[in-house]
């Protein structure tokens, strides 16, 4: 199974490896969700969704389906 933001555990940090651009909204990229940037999972709402992240210093929440499209490498 691929490691994505959706598979991270709370508190884990990772580096974004790949972002599949057709599914990911441009807005998310503009907020810093780009390959090479660091992401940390801060909090998960009940039922695993949405996920509260710190991406490259930006604090934001996204839904699990989108998070599952962002491949990462845990550090």
């Amino acid at each position, binding site marked *: 199974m691929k490691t994505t933001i959706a598979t991270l555990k709370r508190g884990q940090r990772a580096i974004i490896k790949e972002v599949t651009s057709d599914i990911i*909204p*441009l807005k998310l990229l503009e907020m810093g969700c780009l390959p090479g940037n660091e992401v940390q999972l801060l909090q998960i*709402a*009940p039922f695993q*969704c949405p996920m509260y992240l710190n991406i490259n*210093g*930006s604090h934001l929440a996204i839904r699990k389906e989108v998070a599952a499209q962002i491949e990462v490498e845990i550090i």
Partner: protein
Amino acid sequence: MAKQIKVSLIGNPNTGKTSVFNLLTGLNQQVGNYPGITVEKKEGVCKLSRGVKAHILDLPGTYSLNASSLDENVVIELLLNKKDKDFPDVAIVVSDVENLKRNLLLFTQIKDLEIPAILVINMADRMSRKGISIDIPLLEKKLHTKIALVSARKKEGIEDLKKLIESYTLLPKTSNTNALSFAPDYFDRLQKAFPDQSLYKLWLVITQDVNFRKFNKQDISIAPDFKIKSESELKRLQQKETIKRYQFINGALKEALTVDERAATGMRAKLDRVLTHKVWGYFIFFAILLLIFQAIYDWSSYPMDLIDEAFAWLSEFTSSILPAGPLVDLITEGIIPGLGGIVIFIPQIAFLFLFISILEESGYMSRVVFLMDRVMRKFGLSGKSVVPLVSGTACAIPAVMATRNIENWKERLITILVVPFTTCSARLPVYLIIISLVIPDEKIGWIFGYQSLTLMFLYFLGFGTAVGSAWILNKILKIKSKSYFVIEMPGYKIPLFKNVAINVIEKTKAFVFGAGKIILAISIILWVLASFGPNENFNNAEKIVTERYTDLAEEELSNKIASHKLEYSFIGYAGKAIEPIVAPLGYDWKIGIGIISSFAAREVFVGTLATIYSVGSDEEETIKNRMAAEVNQKTGEPLFNLASGLSLLLFYAFAMQCMSTLAIVKRETNTWKWPMAQLVFMSVLAYGIALIVYQILK
């Protein structure tokens, strides 16, 4: 008059852009709408030295020039149209010191449009606490700009900013981001095809779905040596562009910005641990909701009673000092009660917006969205629907407008369609008067009264119906839209009093003048219709009644005359005409008139009954007593009993009775299809349920 410097204030949401605007303009500001759309347009005037003035336009918050909403379109439409009367001489880009990197993305885009730009780094007071230090001169050089370090909270740095605005002609116009250098061939060909346009502007025209006047995608697509790429290819290029921009920003910030991680206090983390907790988070949210309802329904009753009494007094006072006549009647029986019906809502609306703006300013609202998203999605709504649904308890109009930041069209449409079910403040007066008439004023145990429980039930019913219809709509509507949900979780801040106050005043003003006009107009029309009749039965009412009842006391006689007149007035005939339709619900023709006039705005109901019952009578008796004394002509029982009362309450809970809401839904969905569907569905539902309840209980 000296020419004003035209300034546009641009920035990401949550950067304190509005605080900067408020500081620059003080109370010298006005709010309107952009022509044809409901996006708020805020402008103001700022006095600089030597009598120079700057006209400041506060553009809607946006994360980038790649627009994805109506609000963001406004920004790009303005910035690409040099002929626009608001096109800025200078742009102020407001950024937040803690999110500088992300905020600079928009800044580099503005620079690429070759508009002179000043960078404001706001919230400078947080720098030492967060361990941030910035080499301003170096950053100015790297970004080709001038920087003002501002703390809107401490009111620092505004004078520097004003000086920079004054000397805007010295600002460099050039851009050095090279953001479009990733596909040299493609962009060279584009530039060659349109040598006199700026390259970034051309690129924006290609990639955005915005209507640009004069120069648009069509013009570019017919260029001989250049082909627009497919949508997914364009998106890939936009991704590359974004990476390029971040590379530039990282390069610029590398030396100029240092962050000492150790100094950063974990205030946000601590608060988040509680406020987004899976138990405590919800607990706190519901406690806050309870507080809001308490304020709206309990605390605001004191000023509302005062307003009520004041208008009753004003009405009586006016009629006592002015000579009697139809014009004075119009003032004392039509206009003054009509105005009172508007003003009485001010305390509730002000309280609601006070809470909403405090919750938004503090950053808490994003946490509510985070907590509620999953639950709401089960019903086809979004976490972002919570704000509209809560706002809907004040008024559906701002609530429908508040759906704009829901990115997913299907979720947004469903939210718009169900919001009118939430119990808005206009239903409240109807509920209150009917409840006090038909529900016994007794208590169960010590605390809970039947009356307040009924009111609470009606609120839950409103929310329940909204959520339930959302669930049904989610199943029925076949709209494909990408699941797309991004919400920024801003840092916590103590709300600025000035921002909250200005917001409350603005929203209240918008209600008073917007809804107020309709209510006032309708109460005048009703008065006219109730005060004149088409035939002899009306004009000779006194003679007819006096001849018919010869042995009545004077007071009773004048009451008989009044009700006879009303029955044969224009409005009486209209009411009689619809009586067969409303009779199965347990209503008489007077309530029928109330319902008809409520289709314009439901708050008119009580006012209408007040007008109908007070026409031609002394003001001393309250409306409630008069309503309690009404007798159903057919059954001989009191007109307002449990069966007809409940039927009326439920009718108001479900019916779509607000023209302004229909108008706003039309504007937001851009078609008459949805508001009409709303009108038909809600009216049929209301009629059906009211019918069933009355027929069972009677």
